[in-house]
């Protein structure tokens, strides 16, 4: 297992020597249009030869989808406008070089979302950044569940704990015009990225994010310490420390482990969120959490034992793979 990891780290560092993260490289290539690089056009089908096998050998599954994402990124076209059949598409020399560099990085198991510098989440597209957690497809399911519950509510004052790229809050704001969101986030890079995403989506008027590390008796940043909310959402780190050895290189090598590490039972951060909710939810306000597989029954027990009279376990819900993962809790 460890051999495997060191190999991918080695590959990464090799890839990175001539690769300065997707965002910067794509901006440099955007300036140089066809005229400066010009030269010969290469058929995309030709450029792709052999890469599918290389990706597979590197342990990347779903190679076709990966290739299509990278092709559309190199051509600067929206993913859903690129045909499944590439026979009509061509790269110029500059694009060909980009294409090969990106695939090299992908073979080193750099996450696809980091390579192309953006990802779709529900109806919005978010910028991604190397040290910020990439939103997962189950989280889309989680957010649509929360949206479903709040779509008819007049006004919602919402708090998100640990917003990362801003995916959950911003997709809520995008779907529901009567929601206002505040977020706290421990990583500086993520705080900056979330604010930037809000601006890109034109949602900055209803979204504010504070750089703050939640600790016991210092749950909220100073300016917010007396604020109360109608709704708190969070996808706290919930991977158990012992599970780290089994994770994919995309996750364990490239992602910010602070966004994943949930301590020995995966609920270290969730417990802090419970305490925060006791102090900062209005009576009758709700706390929605996305957690790991075996957590919801555990949370129910914790609510009964430790939060009797303060928090009330409302229910748990399943993700699209029929895993019990989401919980709703009410402030008494």
């Amino acid at each position, binding site marked *: 297992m460890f051999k495997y990891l060191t190999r991918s780290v080695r590959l990464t560092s090799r890839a990175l020597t001539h690769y300065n993260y997707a965002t910067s490289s794509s901006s440099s290539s955007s300036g140089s249009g066809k005229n400066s690089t010009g030269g010969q056009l290469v058929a995309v089908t030709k450029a792709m030869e052999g890469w599918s096998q290389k990706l597979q050998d590197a342990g990347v*599954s*779903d190679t076709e*989808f*990966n290739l299509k*994402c990278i092709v559309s990124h190199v051509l600067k076209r929206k*993913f*859903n406008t690129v*045909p*499944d*059949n590439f*026979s*009509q598409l061509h790269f110029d020399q500059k694009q060909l070089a980009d294409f090969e560099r990106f695939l090299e990085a992908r073979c080193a198991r750099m*996450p*696809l*979302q980091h390579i192309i510098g953006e*990802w*779709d*989440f*529900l*109806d919005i597209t978010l910028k991604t950044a190397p040290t910020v*957690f*990439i939103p*997962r*497809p*189950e*989280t*889309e*399911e989680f957010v*649509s569940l929360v949206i479903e519950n709040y779509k008819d509510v007049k006004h919602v004052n919402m708090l998100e704990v640990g917003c990362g790229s801003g995916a959950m809050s911003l997709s809520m704001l995008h779907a529901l015009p009567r929601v206002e969101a505040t977020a706290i986030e421990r990583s500086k890079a993520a705080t900056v990225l979330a604010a930037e995403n809000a601006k890109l989506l034109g949602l900055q008027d209803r979204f504010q994010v504070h750089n703050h590390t939640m600790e016991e008796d210092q749950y909220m940043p100073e300016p917010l310490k007396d604020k109360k909310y109608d709704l708190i959402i969070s*996808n706290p*780190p*919930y*991977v158990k420390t012992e*599970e780290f050895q*089994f*994770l*994919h290189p*995309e*996750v364990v090598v490239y*992602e910010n482990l602070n*966004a*994943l590490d949930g301590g020995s039972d995966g609920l270290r951060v969730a417990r802090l969120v419970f305490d925060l909710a006791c102090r900062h939810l209005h009576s009758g306000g709700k706390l929605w959490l*996305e957690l*790991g*597989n075996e957590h919801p029954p555990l949370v129910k027990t914790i609510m009964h034992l430790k939060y009797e009279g303060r928090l009330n376990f409302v229910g748990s819900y399943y*993700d*699209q*793979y029929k*895993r019990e*993962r989401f919980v709703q809790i009410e402030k008494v």
Partner: protein
Amino acid sequence: MLLRKLLPVRCGYLARRWASSDPLSLQNEKLQSYLESLRQEYYGLRVNATGNSRAYERLSQLEGVVNALEQRRVLERNITSAKDIEQEKDEDMRKLMEEENEVYADLLSKQEHTMLQELLALADDEVYPALIFGVNAGAGGQEAMLFAQELFEMYTSYFEHMGWEYEEFARETTDIGGLRHANVMVNGADAFHWLRFEAGVHRVQRVPATEKAGRMHTSTASITVIPRPADVHVHIAEKDLKIETKRASGAGGQHVNTTDSAVRIVHLPTGLAVEAQSERSQLKNRELALKRLQARLVQQQLESSEASKQATKKAQQGSLNRNEKIRTYNFVQDRVTDHRIQGGTLHNLDGFLKGGESLSGLVEKLQLEHRRSRLRDLLEAWQPPQKAANKD
């Protein structure tokens, strides 16, 4: 002096009198009594329509015509009769009356125009909330498929131009960018009234991109329009669905970062399977797949349901013959010719293929023609009620 002023009024009056041999002129007696019967039907319904949805539907249909008719009568009453003008002794007063009459005559002719429009709209038959619009490449091989693709693009931008929602659910394309066939569900209460005139064979004449020797070819593509009756509903139960995604085992969530977003849904009762992978978000793909499944099920039901067969048959009478060649797109002469109406030739083919005003204008012409002929038929078949009563 006075005579010269009166003359145009008289002439207009005579002209209108003369025009009354046209069945759609408002001076026509049969049309007049038809309108009166509509008015009585309207007021009758207004008193008696309690909780009957058909009656309410008819009421709202009639409302426009009857309102226009009432306004017209008010205007008519305001016009001073020629006899009154002659009897008026005061010269200034008489002038005033004449001037007033001219204003009212002008208003009246405008009012007649709106009323005719309302009456023509009344001639439309049943309303369908949605329809299935099909594009199929016809004779002409690859070239026909390229043309089918162009038609497909023209119509989708036309749908957008008209503000109709549409959902594409079956589409087979070729490698060089052609289209074998495509089906699109179009939602919009008025969509059928417009699109029905597009069904038929469309012919293209040009030197194809695929032609090496530079000869001109004639190829075809056909359009089908199947109305969807209001009572066709498909309910999809959650338990009947098997949703397949590639990421199904392991812990999921924060533990993994795989990006598979393709979704495949199997509808267990029918065995229908649909896939979607055109979006990066899995949830979006699932929504897309569900919509496709819904459309496929509706189509299946439509093809088997008797109601729809009848509706299609009815719609195809007259202008909607599937095998009728309805329009020619001649690229060499840069023109479009519709074979069903007088003066149906338009130039600027590129503009036409954008599916905007130009296409919309032609369809409007076709629709007006269709409404006129339907109203004429309606009037011909209509018997004034009192005559019918006399026969008894």
